């Protein structure tokens, strides 16, 4: 249980409240759920108290809205807008909050705003967690000289040059419940034999100008700009792209055996078209399904089928049928692998067919079949190519843009033609200067395609965030990019489209970034689908150190692998080794609000956790768990170390099962 409660407001007394409310007859109540206190309920008792008082005084309550973190202007504005009609009917808005919340509401509404609370002084800043230690944020830290006890906050007079002399029996003269801070400082230093340090120092004068209005203002503006850059929320993780960004895409020695899962896409699992003992050639279709949402599977080598059997899947929690093929290393190409034509010779339908035949899926991780996106009946106007690769460490797409810009551009033009769209945009993060230049140089004045660079921020590569940033359109909750007229594809997918049309080559290989701690030969490798991670580990010299783990995908959203006996699949953009997360158990939420600040989907992760743990599925659904994109920002930032993504994944599963 949280030990402390940092509630910052208390309701004014009755007389004062009535005095403030005055002649206003219809009152709308906005209340803030307290921050930095135990998360128990989602509406604070003060609201009911005020409501009762209003009723007794013969006033009408025009409505009420409890909100989390009222000071979060972006979210509060949206919430208040959603009830604007009710608010406008009121004479005034009564706000139950600390002074910051009241000022936020007053700034957002053109109605008289009545402050219903007095804010309670907390004496300094208490960090992000509930803590007895506090900081005066004086800008001139004295803790080194004072044994780590703060004289500014802990001494009731804020003296910085020793005690005042008013202490009696170690207690402060201001309150006998308070220890004399300077005595504590002296005792601490004495125990370390350092008591001479501060005594011998010249007296200090506190410089109150260190944090002046201009400096403070510039900090606020800088942080706000970073927070709101492009889209709401998100994080700026350490990128560590430099490990592989200069490494040219190289081939890795082909494996002896490949194991190709029959499910490498969103949708129905494929049925095997081959049996053990059969010979297959490179590019031969070995898996297909009649379902609408599915994608063909092809052999990535030529050789003999050893078995068709269930094996562990790198992403799915259950075994999936795999076609195990012994590679004869002859790379005999299937007769079906032949060029389907070119951008000018192919019709739109032919391109879609080629993409379908090649089993192309979204290669950024979601693995949604590309041909389905292109066959949408919706009115579309833009193809947005996602070159952000916002996950730390990954460079596969980056290298493709640097080394194969023509293929990227042609692939994009093919997609535009197939979907009948005349506008294409390639968006990449501003940390990919070389890729940007490379694409620009091959653009040759094509006015239909725009290459733009956006400021780096995670999770920019999430299609919703990218659409918001680049086109300033908001994909509705529960909707798809198609709903706002956009098709989003990632760079690897576009290159696969190019290969599917120009070379008739199915999706049988992809570029994978191998990097991280304990990787002897990091790089961007072209790897055949179905190659075992164990073989790659041998070829690249991967030794996972203690306290580290191997992930397939990115550093944040990637899937942890407990064995190396899993194959590379179509969506594997990275094989990386990263530090394990703390395995400490989660502490109760203290409502620090950071998860709400970083959630790019504008959800309230802390509340979702509360409801999920209480198995209150109605509320979990209402709070929008299905809209969670599992980007992991909330978990990364959580000061209570809640395993949020895991909780949300199982909540989604529970909701789906309930619906069945």
């Amino acid at each position: 249980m949280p030990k402390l409660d940092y509630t910052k407001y208390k309701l004014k007394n009755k007389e004062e409240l009535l005095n403030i409310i005055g002649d206003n007859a219809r009152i709308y109540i906005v209340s803030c759920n307290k921050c930095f206190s135990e998360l128990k309920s989602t509406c604070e008792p003060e609201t009911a108290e005020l409501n009762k008082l209003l009723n007794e005084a013969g006033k009408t309550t025009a409505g009420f809205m409890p909100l989390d973190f009222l000071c979060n202007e972006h979210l509060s504005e949206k919430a208040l807008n959603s009830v604007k009609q009710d608010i406008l009917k009121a004479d005034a808005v009564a706000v139950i909050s600390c002074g910051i919340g009241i000022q936020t509401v007053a700034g957002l509404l053109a109605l008289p705003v009545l402050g219903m609370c007095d804010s309670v002084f907390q004496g300094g800043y208490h960090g992000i967690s509930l803590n007895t230690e506090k900081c005066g944020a004086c800008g001139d830290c004295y803790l080194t000289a004072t044994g780590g006890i703060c004289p500014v906050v802990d001494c009731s007079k804020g003296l910085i040059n020793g005690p005042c002399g008013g202490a009696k029996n170690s207690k402060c003269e201001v309150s006998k419940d308070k220890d004399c801070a300077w005595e504590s400082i002296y005792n601490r230093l004495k125990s370390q034999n350092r008591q001479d340090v501060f005594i011998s120092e010249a007296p200090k004068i506190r410089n109150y100008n260190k944090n002046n209005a201009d400096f403070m203002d510039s900090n606020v503006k800088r942080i706000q700009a970073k927070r709101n850059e492009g889209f709401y929320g998100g994080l700026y993780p350490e990128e560590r792209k430099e490990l592989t960004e200069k490494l040219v895409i190289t081939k890795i020695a082909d494996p002896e055996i490949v194991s190709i899962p029959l499910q490498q896409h969103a949708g129905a699992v494929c049925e095997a078209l081959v049996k053990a003992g059969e010979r297959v050639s490179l590019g031969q279709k070995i898996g297909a399904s009649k379902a609408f949402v599915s994608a063909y599977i092809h052999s990535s080598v030529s050789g003999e089928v050893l078995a068709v059997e269930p094996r562990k899947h790198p992403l799915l929690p259950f075994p999936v049928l795999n076609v195990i093929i012994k590679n004869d290393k002859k790379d005999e190409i299937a007769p079906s692998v032949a060029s389907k034509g070119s951008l000018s010779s192919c019709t739109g339908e032919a391109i879609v067919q080629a993409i379908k035949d090649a089993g192309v899926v979204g290669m950024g991780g979601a693995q949604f079949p590309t041909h389905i996106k292109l066959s949408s009946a919706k009115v579309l106007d833009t193809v947005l190519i996602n070159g952000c690769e916002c996950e730390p460490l990954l460079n596969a797409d980056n290298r493709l843009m640097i080394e194969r810009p023509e293929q990227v551009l042609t692939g994009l033009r093919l997609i535009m033609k197939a979907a009948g769209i005349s506008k294409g945009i390639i968006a990449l993060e501003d940390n990919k200067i070389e890729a940007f230049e490379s694409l620009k140089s091959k653009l040759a004045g094509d006015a239909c395609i725009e290459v733009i660079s956006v400021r780096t921020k995670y999770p920019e590569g999430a299609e919703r965030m990218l659409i918001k940033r680049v086109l300033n359109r908001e994909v509705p909750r529960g909707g798809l990019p198609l709903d706002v007229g956009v098709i989003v594809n990632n760079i690897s997918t576009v290159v696969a489209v190019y290969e599917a049309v120009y070379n008739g080559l199915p999706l049988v290989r992809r570029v994978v970034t191998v990097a991280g701690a304990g990787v002897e030969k990091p790089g961007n490798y072209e790897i055949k689908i179905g190659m075992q991670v164990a073989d790659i580990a041998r070829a690249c010299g991967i030794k996972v150190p203690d306290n580290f783990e191997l992930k397939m995908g990115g550093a944040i959203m990637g899937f942890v692998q407990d064995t190396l006996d899993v194959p590379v699949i179509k969506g594997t953009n990275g094989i990386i080794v990263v530090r394990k997360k703390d395995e400490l158990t989660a502490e109760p939420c203290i409502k620090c609000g950071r998860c709400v600040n970083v959630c790019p989907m504008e959800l309230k992760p802390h509340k979702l956790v509360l409801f999920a743990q209480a198995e209150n599925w109605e509320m979990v659904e209402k709070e929008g768990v299905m809209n969670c994109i599992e980007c992991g920002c909330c978990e990364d930032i959580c000061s209570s170390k809640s395993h949020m993504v895991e909780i949300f994944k199982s909540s989604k599963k529970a909701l789906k099962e309930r619906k069945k």
Partner: protein
Amino acid sequence: MLITQLKKKEELLPFFKENILLIACFGCKEVHFPSKEYELLKAELKTLNLNISGEIVLDYLCNEDYTAKRLELYRNEITKAGTLLVFACGVGVQTLAALLPDKTILAGCDTFYVPGFSGFTPTSYDCEQCGECKLGLTAGICPLTACSKGLLNGPCGGTKNGKCEVSKNMDCGWEKILLKSKAIGEPNPRIKEIVSIRDYKKSFS
């Protein structure tokens, strides 16, 4: 909320006497901790042949329970180190000092205040937690914090073109209050009431 800045190298160097363990708190990494400057400083310290025994990177040092658990993991390094140089806000440094009372703790950062309480939502306005909220009378603009002098009974007269005489980048709080009052209808007549002298004791009750 608050924000940290590295102390100058010259300020830190006199303390480099015995073997030093660096502890950095990256809890507020993405916006607030000067991580790039920290990396540069670390590289520079390394070239100076100083006796640095190691580095521990943690987050949310202010989370006492976690920090206590995690310090257990690094007990050896900490025991060996003579001094800990902590790069964190004042709360983090104090938390560590309280958990390791027998260790000399050095503060590597200065901590500055940024308006706003909850999490890390920075606001351009602030609340002084005076315990006598006047916002209902002042169109939701706080005279204590929006006026650089914290005047409760109207402007001082030192404003020029809507700007405060203390800083020309700062709007006059009282002018803002009056403009906003007019914008939302008639100014609350009670705005003209003389506000009693601020009771500083209230904020502690």
